[in-house]
């Protein structure tokens, strides 16, 4: 016999479960966002504090965006949404880190800020010949990256553009000479990223430039409006890539096809490092409108895309950043790729690809961004790993925001309509709804995630002073004052450059290492530095490009927390040589030359 009231009881139970389930949605949603910016926390709580000092430091650069063909005027803020970049180098070898900003309006001037060593910076771009690179008809700057391609000890400068890329030879830190034509660079690449790497380990830096818009497209004189991505997530009608091998005589040879790099995706960021322990640098592409690509270097003779096999290239998103960091101090380089998250519309989540523990035959990765709490960053752009509070673990600084215009209006709805359209619709700019001065993920708060080293990142941007809401594009970490802390430089699209001076809580130690190759390329790009302290080992690599349109200082900075000794610093040079420095002194910079 079934009790007569059993159906009612059951329905009551089911109702309670249903209500509990529904009630759990907002609760879990809030809990997921528990790392959201916390306002009002005491400075120093997280071990550091940032103060924006650009103006008083003499940095008054304001980026100007490009203006393309009038046929794109209805969506100009979108198609002209990049170009603000920052690249750091000590170009004059005076021991102080300098930095270069790109500008993107026709006839606008780029800036090269020389570090006076007294907290002041002076623009010397015009004087040294690297300012006027955006002349009408030649394209405009999208970014720059430093590297000593001729091993003369001075960092040379590549400026990549929507236009002809430019290579400037550094003449002893006193002037720059445009050697683009002699070097044999391509005449026009609509590029948003480039990097230096010594892919064949011959001791000379090679060059990689990634096209974004299709080849041959002149955005100022369109022959057709069918220039947009053929899909929001599966587009393969972007620009070709260029792998240019340094021939050692000041010229470069295009070996892209021969080396197996065939991508036509819309690459927004590229970074190179030895991700698989082969001794050769691999290439990671963060692609807009599609999956990422990971080109595995086959001993300097060929590249093979292993992104799908390794897991990093399975899900198409809107990749905008590529940076590497050993977040667990276990020698594994994680890859951070920024994507788009807009509440209520599109939640791609950023990716933090961490090599699977113990490794595997395919070198597979897991996306740990959600579990570590570094996935939701708005419309994310550049990001960098660095120990901001010198506690011995790598933190993460992310800039974001796409188009900040009308504060009370959003383009997102119209974008959501066109983004789902078939390629015949989305691919034609004429079909894209007019932006009419509306914002598009604008005025976003930045993210600064502090790493606790054991599996959790805490978002502290507002608490530590990173409170701007500009449309951030590039971010670079650099010790501007040789104080043993990482300061932050931000390049904003159509906005002022920012310099955040970092103040770290006293009592935290550090060690810096600056490398100079001999058998290896002199910039030591590609070198691996493993610092062992307090029973853990932190790996950092010397990189050229990192993040989005950015380059950090080449100098390796390692926070030590309370540790007062470092056991060893092990350097694996790009040449393959291994050098171990026993118990180096802390709280100082070590300049290390590759042993013969």
């Amino acid at each position: 016999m079934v009790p007569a009231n059993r159906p009612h009881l059951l329905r009551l139970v089911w109702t309670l479960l249903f209500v509990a389930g529904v009630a759990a949605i907002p609760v879990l949603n809030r809990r997921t966002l528990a790392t959201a910016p916390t306002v009002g926390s005491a400075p120093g709580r997280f071990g550091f504090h940032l103060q924006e000092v650009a103006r008083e430091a003499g940095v008054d650069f304001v980026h100007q965006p490009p203006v393309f063909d009038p046929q794109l005027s209805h969506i100009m803020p979108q198609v002209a949404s990049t170009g603000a970049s920052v690249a750091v180098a000590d170009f004059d070898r005076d021991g102080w880190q300098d930095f270069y900003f790109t500008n993107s309006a026709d006839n606008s001037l780029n800036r090269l800020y020389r570090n006076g060593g007294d907290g002041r910076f002076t623009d010397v771009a015009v004087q040294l010949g690297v300012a006027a690179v955006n002349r009408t008809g030649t394209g405009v700057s999208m970014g720059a990256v430093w590297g000593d391609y001729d091993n003369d000890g001075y960092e040379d400068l590549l400026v990549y553009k929507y236009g002809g890329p430019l290579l400037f030879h550094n003449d002893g830190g006193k002037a720059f000479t445009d050697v683009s034509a002699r070097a044999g660079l391509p005449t026009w690449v609509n590029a948003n990223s480039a990097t230096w790497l010594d892919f064949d380990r011959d001791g000379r830096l090679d060059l990689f430039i990634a096209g974004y818009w299709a080849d041959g497209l002149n955005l100022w004189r369109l022959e057709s409006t069918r220039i947009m991505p053929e899909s929001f997530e599966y587009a393969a009608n972007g620009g070709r890539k260029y792998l240019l091998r340094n021939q050692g005589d000041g010229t470069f040879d295009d070996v892209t096809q021969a080396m197996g790099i065939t991508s036509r995706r819309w690459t927004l960021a590229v970074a190179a490092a030895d991700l698989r322990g082969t001794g050769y640098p691999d290439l990671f592409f963060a692609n807009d409108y599609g999956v990422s690509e990971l080109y595995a270097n086959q001993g300097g003779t060929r590249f093979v895309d292993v992104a799908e096999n390794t897991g990093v290239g399975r899900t198409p998103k809107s990749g905008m950043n590529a940076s590497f960091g050993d977040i667990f101090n276990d020698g594994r380089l994680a890859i951070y790729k920024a994507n788009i998250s807009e509440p209520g519309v599109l939640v791609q989540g950023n990716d933090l690809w961490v090599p699977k523990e113990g490794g595997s035959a395919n070198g597979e990765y897991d996306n740990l961004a959600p579990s570590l709490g570094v996935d939701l960053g708005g419309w994310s752009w550049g990001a960098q790993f660095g120990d901001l509070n010198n506690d011995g673990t790598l933190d993460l600084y992310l800039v974001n925001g796409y188009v900040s215009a009308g504060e009370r209006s959003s383009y997102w709805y119209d974008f959501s309509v066109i983004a789902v359209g078939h390629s015949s619709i989305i691919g034609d700019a004429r079909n894209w709804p007019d932006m009419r001065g509306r914002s598009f993920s604008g005025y976003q708060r930045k993210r600064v995630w502090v790493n606790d080293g054991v599996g959790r990142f805490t978002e502290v941007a507002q608490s530590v002073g990173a409170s701007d809401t500009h449309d951030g594009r590039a971010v670079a970490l650099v010790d501007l004052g040789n104080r043993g802390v990482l300061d932050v430089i931000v390049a904003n699209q159509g906005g002022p450059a920012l310099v955040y001076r970092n103040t770290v809580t006293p009592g935290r130690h550090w060690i810096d290492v600056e490398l100079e190759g001999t058998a290896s390329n002199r910039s030591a790009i590609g070198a691996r530095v493993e610092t062992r302290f307090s029973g853990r080992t932190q790996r950092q690599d010397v990189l050229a490009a990192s993040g989005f349109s950015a380059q950090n200082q080449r100098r390796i900075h390692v926070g030590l927390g309370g540790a007062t000794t470092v056991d060893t610093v092990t350097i694996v040079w790009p040449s393959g040589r291994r050098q171990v420095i026993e118990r180096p002194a802390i709280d100082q910079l070590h300049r290390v030359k590759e042993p013969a």
Partner: protein
Amino acid sequence: MTEVTGAAAAGPLPKGGQWLRLDNRFLPPLLITSILLTAHLSFGILEGWERTGLAIVTAFASEMVLGRITYGKWPYAASAYITGISVGILLRSPFLWPYALCAFISIASKYVLRFRGRHLWNPSNLGVSLVLFLAPETVSLLSVQWGNVVAPMVVIWLLGSVIVWRVGRFYLSATYVASFLLFSLVRAAVTGIPWVAAVAPITGPMYQLFIFFMVTDPKVTVRPMWAQCLVVFIVAFVELILRLNEVVYAPFYALCVVGPCALLVEMWLDARRAKLVVVGAGFSRPDKGQGIA
């Protein structure tokens, strides 16, 4: 999304020599499975099998537990399978919990949100709408093309059309498409966006799933054919209103609002007619709806 369709769901399995004939009740699960497999293996639409798998397992387990306890027998699993797989395809989130919670809520709604023996909402439509509404920061919907070529879209449209034709619901899909196209003209005129942009959403897979699996759900649509078409037309109209107010997930919210309202109106009319019959003939028509116990 749709439960196994109408008469097919209630009919017995084919016997004897007829076993090779494909029973209608298997068509929707087969269609959605083939869509998922094709889309993922070709274009990698899923962030990982674990999310879709979690949604399917949760839906299946919820259905089994709730159905077994409620009715004393194992429920037909295809409905839960479709709900789970639909949630797994449609939802986009870096987190796992939305998939599990949405699948559970969808299934549970069938046992809770009932009126006069009928559940009022399409399960996954309700679940997805609730999750989207209550967790906008962490959940979004599948909103992009599967690839760039026409062929997959044509195949899905043809396959979907054949199947909804076979189960006798093609007129609903057709009514919705016609209504959407009509209202896209209105949206283009009102907002000034290009008409092809206004039409663009229907070329996406989200709409293909919506058209073939949600608006055709027999358990939550009214009975007369003309009334069903009217309801679908009203869904498209409410979607128009929502879209004019820039609601991104307009079709889901529209169906979520209009569907139950239409059912309640029908029930009210049925009750009114029954009263008249009672008054006129002295007996009432038995409720054909499926009781909870």
